[in-house]
């Protein structure tokens, strides 16, 4: 049985501001060498009273064991190039479009406008108006069009300008995208990628702040992944495009300006695997997308208090990587799930059930899940802050679990 604590009135912490964020370096260098790399996390944890959202807080930190990262590739050349998350997505998309002429993009304002978050910038000039198709505002129809195109040989990447708009395409995503491979007896494949930004942004209002991962997770036949760093954004984009299954790639509005150095050589990320962000011994914290950064921020505080949290970015929202998660649970015996999804019926709810079902014997405490409030996201900044999980709550939850 899971105890759930959701975002209540937290001590006012500056809201996470990613504008000047540099993701922790992913390199495999030993700690001493890493100390020379700067890791800037905005929203200083110590200054609890300031909560202005427009003021950028930055705090230089010497990267230490608190934010150790796992290297995903076996070796890095050491060169690599630095870019922002949206540029990483674009790079991945462009590489796949270069590689396979069947890959095309369709969505609103993806062509001439370059994408409302600039993910498709420059692609229309390079590949033409048909390969990077500016559609009219008809999500259901153009998603269906992408599905029909996929059935007949193309590999469309369908962009929802905001994930919330894909609610209008639910018919096509559920009935056709998810099901047609099955109902056709395996005759037709639907290798589409449906992507777009979702999540709670900066006072965007209720309808533009939705988290659709919970609505889509029951659809059989689709896979869902959520990217959180430029590295895994590019890798997941490429993997999703190459996959024969329909994949929904969840991006987050506030993470597009994350900066990181990624390898020059080609790489893809595994769609079904989770990412070990920080190995630890005391507690397993499972998270994804933007909450990863709140967790890492809380992790710093926790380390200072003497805890050793293991942080895993689950990345694959459907299906869950029960191997990585299971190994972690077997090691730490305590699980905290931190997500931005709604409390009711969210990813955390499913994950809690899966962990209880599979790893019950290994748990020393009930699985705790921190989710957003079951509330339409309010416009007011203060209220909005209280609907999502903040680092202080994460710290409190860990302390509670680790008693």
């Amino acid at each position, binding site marked *: 049985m899971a105890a759930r604590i959701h975002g209540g009135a937290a001590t006012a912490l500056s809201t996470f501001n990613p504008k000047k964020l540099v993701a922790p370096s992913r390199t495999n260098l030993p700690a001493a060498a890493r100390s020379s790399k700067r890791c800037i996390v905005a929203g200083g944890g110590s200054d609890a009273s300031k909560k202005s959202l427009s003021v950028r807080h930055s705090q230089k930190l010497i990267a230490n064991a608190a934010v150790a990262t796992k290297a995903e590739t076996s070796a890095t050349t050491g060169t690599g190039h630095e870019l922002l998350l949206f540029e990483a997505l674009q790079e991945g998309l462009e590489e796949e479009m270069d590689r396979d002429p069947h890959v095309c993009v369709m969505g609103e304002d993806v062509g001439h406008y370059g994408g409302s978050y600039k993910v498709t910038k420059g692609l229309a000039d390079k590949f033409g108006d048909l390969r990077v198709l500016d559609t009219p505002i008809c999500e259901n129809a153009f998603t269906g069009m992408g599905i029909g195109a996929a059935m007949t040989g193309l590999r469309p990447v369908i962009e929802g300008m905001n994930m919330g708009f894909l609610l209008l395409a639910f018919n096509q995503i559920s009935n056709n995208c998810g099901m047609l491979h099955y109902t056709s*007896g395996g005759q037709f494949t639907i290798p589409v990628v449906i992507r777009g930004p979702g999540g709670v942004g900066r006072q965007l209002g209720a309808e533009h702040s939705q988290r659709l991962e919970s609505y889509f997770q029951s659809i059989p036949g689709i896979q869902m992944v959520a990217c959180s760093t430029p590295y895994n954004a590019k890798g997941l984009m490429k993997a999703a495009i190459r996959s024969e299954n329909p994949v929904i790639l969840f991006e987050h509005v506030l993470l597009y300006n994350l900066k990181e150095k990624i390898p020059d050589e080609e790489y893809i990320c595994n769609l079904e695997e989770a990412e070990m962000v920080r190995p630890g011994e005391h507690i397993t914290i499972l998270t994804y997308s933007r909450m990863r950064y709140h967790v890492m921020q809380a992790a710093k505080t926790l380390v200072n208090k003497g805890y050793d949290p293991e942080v895993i970015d689950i990345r694959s929202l459907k299906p869950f990587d029960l191997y990585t998660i299971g190994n972690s649970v077997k090691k730490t015996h305590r699980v905290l799930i931190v997500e931005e999804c709604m409390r009711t019926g969210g990813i955390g709810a499913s994950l809690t059930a899966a962990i209880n079902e599979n790893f019950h014997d290994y748990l020393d405490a009930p699985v705790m899940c921190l989710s957003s409030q079951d509330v339409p996201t309010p416009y007011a900044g203060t209220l909005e802050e209280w609907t999502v999980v903040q680092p202080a709550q994460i710290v409190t939850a860990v302390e509670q679990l680790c008693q």
Partner: protein
Amino acid sequence: MATSFSATLPLHGSQENRLLLPPIRLAPPPSSFLGSTRSLTIPSSRRLYHAHAARRSPVVGVQEVVKEKKVTNSLVLCILITKEEGLVLYEDMILGRSFEDMCAQMYYRGKMFGFVHLYNGQEAVSTGFIKLLTQSDSVVSTYRDHVHALSKGVSARAVMSELFGKVTGCCRGQGGSMHMFSKEHNMLGGFAFIGEGIPVATGAAFTSKYKREVLKQDCEDVTVAFFGDGTCNNGQFYECLNMAALYKLPIIFVVENNLWAIGMSHLRSTSDPEIWKKGPAFGMPGVHVDGMDVLKVREVAKEAVTRARRGEGPTLVECETYRFRGHSLADPDELRDAAEKAKYAARDPITALKKYLVENKLANEGELKTIEKKIDELVEEAVEFADASPQPGRSQLLENVFADPKGFGIGPDGRYRCEDPKFTEGTAQV
């Protein structure tokens, strides 16, 4: 390099509902689109349309040809088809009718279950369009899809087995009556919700255009989307009319207007019941045709398909037709007027074609009887085959959910679930 889309077609014919396009010059026979000159009669008479076209249009109906032996216009062809074509059309319609009748029998005998929607009476539309297509052209249908699948070339055995839920069905028994798919014959389904197939058809047409313009392949494939009058009040229909016209996609939207959506009369649910008019609103020709006359349908279809192949864009064709049975086998069909049913029964497309073939000496009764017998045997054999086929085993349960079964994820033991031996048995935990 950027390709740009030309503007939409100039809108035509706003003052009168006549020719919606200037006559297209084709190799013989030249013909112009059947401009619809229908006037809407008052609903109480239940007669929506009556033809004025015979005078103006060189394409005439079966009945008119039989009546008027004299040809007034030198461009008019008295006989619209050759003997071979006629027999192909006849056989296809008989196949559709016999198959559907057998479906009804089998349903009441408990061999198939669920929702089964039969096509009796509408055969002229399916035959008229699909017999003009090649194998690589695509057809998208609705839940009333058995005959579309048969016309497209899916074997009667495969369709019947699918209806019986057997492994040998065209979709391995996983789709059922409302999901007839065939990759080989480019039958893209079979959709249970109305309207959801239209975007898929638009996508197939998009692929055709993409192959031509981006991949530089020789691709003249067209897509024909069939749907009913009820669907024409659905948003997906309009969204796709817009996109198809905007991108000039090689697609033909065929409305099988049988006047009823289960128990909802078309006139009660539609503000402007003349569906063909909605085409020009989006910049494509809209045509109305008598859907009980396979030769008329075929002539219109030829135009529309040729237009699409030439890259001139989509067409909306409204076929006035009628279903002789209820909406589905579960429908008691009490709302429809007996007089209306009788009127359309008298216009049975199969009877009409038979009369045409015989009276124009294209075939004799004996040849037609041979065809009917052959089809009867074919359908019987299909039933026997379906009966004898095995039902799907447990192992099939988890197959085909994903094209790449890695999508089921990684299990607690570190292996992909699809590698679990229980997975192939269909008993794995996913």
